[in-house]
Structures are given as structure tokens and as C-alpha cells.
């Protein structure tokens, strides 16, 4: 008798679930909203600012070519290499800037922690897939572009359950 009751209770629990709203996120049509504009770091206080660790953004007017990001990455993913750029900056005499290989990057964000000049941040762009390995290597010019994102879906909880949207 008890086992029959148990099976009925289990079935009942499953049937009740039919009235609950669908929780699944329909990904390419809907995209999750993140806090802030991506992970940033303030070298003065030594504390980061919360945000998604996505593709990097490089500010050419601030980068001095000090290579600290490449040194930080050396023991982790070896994704950052310093390359020559055709730009003349007073603060960047050697004219070298980081180039990031997203085939190797693990998105830990320790390069952002290493930058003392507010030049390297991360953004909310996480859709980086490509058909070739070469296209995964982002040059300094590509890294300077601010990505366009339309992410607006959040988890909503009401009486009929939780949904995305």
C-alpha cells in the first residue's frame, strides 16, 4: 500500500509540473543579460569590477606596450603575444600592443588584473566561434572595437514558476 501511495505521489509531482512555465532559454533568439559592461579592474584599489569575462577590449590611447598582460598569461594559456602596430603614440615608443589568440584563451581575466594603465578590459561579447583557427586570433585593431550586444533576458520568478524572458 505504501509503495502504491509513493508511486501516486511521484506521478502527481510530475503532473503538477505540466502547469509550470517553461524554464528553457531559447538561446539564439534570446540572450541572457549580464551585470555591467564586462569584467574590469582598478589597479589603484587592486579590486575588480563585476562583469562577464568575455572578449577583451583594448584602449590604444592607454596601452604603453609594457607587456605585463603577456607575462601574466605566460604560465596560464600563452594566448597573448605582443605585435607591432602602425601607430605613433608618445606613451608607446616601441609601438607594440597585445594580440590575443582566442583558441588558447581560458577567459580567466588575470591579464586584466595585470594591466596598470586601465588599457585592457573585458566585454560582454562571448560569441567568438569561427570556421578557421586564424580568425580566432584578434589583432590590436580588432580588439579596439566595442562589441554590439543585445542581451536583455533575465530569470523571472512568479507564482507559476521561473522563466527566462
Amino acid at each position, binding site marked *: 500500500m505504501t509503495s502504491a501511495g509513493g*508511486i501516486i505521489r*511521484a506521478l*502527481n509531482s*510530475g503532473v503538477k509540473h505540466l502547469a509550470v512555465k517553461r524554464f528553457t532559454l531559447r538561446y539564439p533568439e534570446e540572450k541572457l543579460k549580464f*551585470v555591467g559592461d564586462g569584467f574590469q579592474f582598478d589597479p589603484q584599489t587592486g*579590486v575588480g569590477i563585476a562583469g562577464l569575462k568575455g572578449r577583451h577590449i583594448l584602449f590604444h590611447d592607454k596601452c604603453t606596450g609594457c607587456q605585463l598582460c603577456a607575462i601574466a598569461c605566460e604560465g596560464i*594559456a600563452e594566448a597573448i603575444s605582443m605585435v607591432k602596430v602602425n601607430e605613433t603614440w608618445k606613451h608607446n615608443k616601441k609601438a607594440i600592443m597585445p594580440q590575443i589568440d582566442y583558441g588558447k584563451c581560458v577567459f*580567466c581575466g588575470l591579464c586584466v588584473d595585470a594591466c596598470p594603465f586601465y588599457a585592457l578590459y573585458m566585454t560582454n561579447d562571448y560569441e567568438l566561434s569561427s570556421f578557421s583557427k586564424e580568425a580566432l586570433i584578434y589583432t590590436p585593431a580588432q580588439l579596439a572595437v566595442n562589441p554590439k550586444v543585445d542581451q536583455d533576458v533575465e*530569470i523571472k*520568478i512568479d507564482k507559476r514558476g521561473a522563466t527566462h524572458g
Partner: protein
Amino acid sequence: MITPLPPGIQLEKVDDRIMTLNVGPQHPGSGHMRLIIKVDGDYIVSCDPDPGYVHRGEEKMAEYRNYIQNIPHLERPVIHDSCNILYPYCLAVEDLLGLEVPERAKYIRVIASELNRCVYTLYWLAIYGIFLGHSTMFMWPVGDREFCIDLLEAMSGARVTHAYFVPGGVRNDLPANFEERCLRQIDYFEKRLKQYEDIFYQNPVLKQRTEGTGVLSRMDAIRLGTTGSVLRSAGVDFDVRKKEPYDVYDNLDFQTQVLKEGDSYARSRVPYLDMLESCRIIKDALKKMPKSGSVRTKLKPNPKGGNDEVYRRVESGRGSLGMYVVSDGKPEPYRVKISVGSFRNLICMPYLLKGEKLGNMPAVYWSLNYWPVEADR
């Protein structure tokens, strides 16, 4: 043509009643690990677990990277529980470098660690469910994991492999309105967890399958050196969070979950009860957390430790997880030894499976809360 055997090598004597089965290492029933099982008909005569298939040399890698660079790769063994595997490392390095952790950072760490325990346990529960043929129990936990992952993503910026803990605190402060969002989602998550009772834990089909299979007695659990949910399900009240409280666990209000039976059912129920307890801890920590303040002690670019050695351990999703860090005054650690709960619980396998039916193998094996990648390190 049969090549003759080299001298000195003896083949095992083949008994025509006993058959040897290799379960794994690529069989989904065993994870990335091989179980050499000998069966007589349907009954298991002996079981010899053979770990090491996904050994990655994490401990050796740690000797060539400095204390900060070690963070992203040390969390790779358990990406679902990455905060908990970094926790003992950070505690040990803080002791080595003599760092003071701000009070707010301690609470944030506790919240992140408890959320991560839920993420790991739900993933494990989903696998446990699907191997018992209960596909609803695969769908529900994987869906409900999203609440905890969403909160962790808001905190740390990554869904898994957060790289959030550093020696000296956490990498960034909580985002705005996090407390309110966390309370709302954890409340709902707790409500969802309670629905697992009817469909899974009180389900007579699961009870018949798991009750009384793979019984581990209290004395055996102690003698074999098991830890975590396996030890607590056999009636031993041991939880590192209670016995050796780290950070602020001694200020928080929670209880350890202990069951007496020691069978597969009890082993699968203790992590579930732990998750409910985690929800209480998170709510309590949110209440007691200082509302503002620093979250990270500023570090020198290339910190060096003295000639010292430290062992610290925490309670992870799979039991006590310890890190032994030796420093010889260089920026890199001299040695990092990781002691994980998965590997210590694996030793039960030959004792638990002897005399069981082969069909009960997944029910016993997955109840051990074993994570092959972590055990191999």
C-alpha cells in the same frame, strides 16, 4: 600468428565460471575510469577500480607557475566545483604569505563556495538519476542548476571555472542589488529542491533499487578512510566546516547531515540534505555580511613565501579537500599536493560491490559521489 610470451610473464588462470568485464574507461557508466569487474553469472565476485585515465599532472604544473598563475589551472580538476577546489589553495597561500583577508571577502567566499556546492551536487544528482533510468531526475537538476550558475556568473563573470578566489580575498566585489537577487532565487531554488522528495527520494522504485545495496558499516567507513557524504551516510558526524571551521563558518548557523544506514540510498540522500543546508548558510551569510568594505588585500606583483609549509582543508562537494603547499622562498611553490575526497572514497568499491548484482553497479558506484577527473588530478 601468436607471438610467444616473454619469459617471466604469467597469464591469469582462466576459470570458466568467472568472466572478466572491463567497464570503461570510455563507458558512460564508469566515467573516465576503468572498473575491472569479475562476475559469476549475474553476481560480482570482485571489483578492481583502475583510475588514472585523465591524469593531467596538476601538481607538477603548479611547481612551474607563480602563486597567482596557479589559480586558473588548479580549478580544472572539478570545473563544477571550482570555488571549493581553489579554497584550500587560497587559505594555504594566505598562511604562507601572511595575508589578512577582509571580513566582507570571507562572507563572499562562503556564499560562492556554497553556491558551487549546489552546482556540483545537482550535476552529480542528474548523473545519478539518469544511470538509475530516472530521466526526469536528469532534467530537473540540470534546469535548477541555472539559478546557482546565474548567481555565480553575476559574482564572478563566468558560468564555470570562475577563477574568483585569490590569495587575499576575492577578485571583485558583488554587483549592485546582488543580495536581493540572491535571496529571491535561493528561495525559489529551495522550493524546487523540496519537490525532489516526492518524485525521487520517496519514490518506491528508487528505494527498492538503492536501499540495502552496497552497505558500508560505520567501522568500515572509518577504517577505509572515507570522507564527505560517504562517511556521513554511515553515521559518522564529520564535516570540516564544523570540526575545523575556516573563514566565517563558525559564525554561521547550520547543522551537519548524518544518516545511519550506510547504503546507496543514504549516500545519495546526504548531498541532497547538504544542499538544503547550503541554502540556509547562504541566507544566513547574506544577513551577517558587512554591507561595505574592502574585498581584497593588495598583493605585490610577484609574491614570495618564506621557507615554510602549510596544509589546509575545506569541505568540498565530495568530502574534505586538502592542499599541502611547500614554499622555498621562490615566487613558485616548491610542491603542491592535492588530497581529494573522490580518490579517498574510491577505495570502498571492492568492499561494496562484492556479492552485489551487476545491475546494481551504477547504483553503488555513482552513490560514492566520485568525480574521476578530480581523483586523477
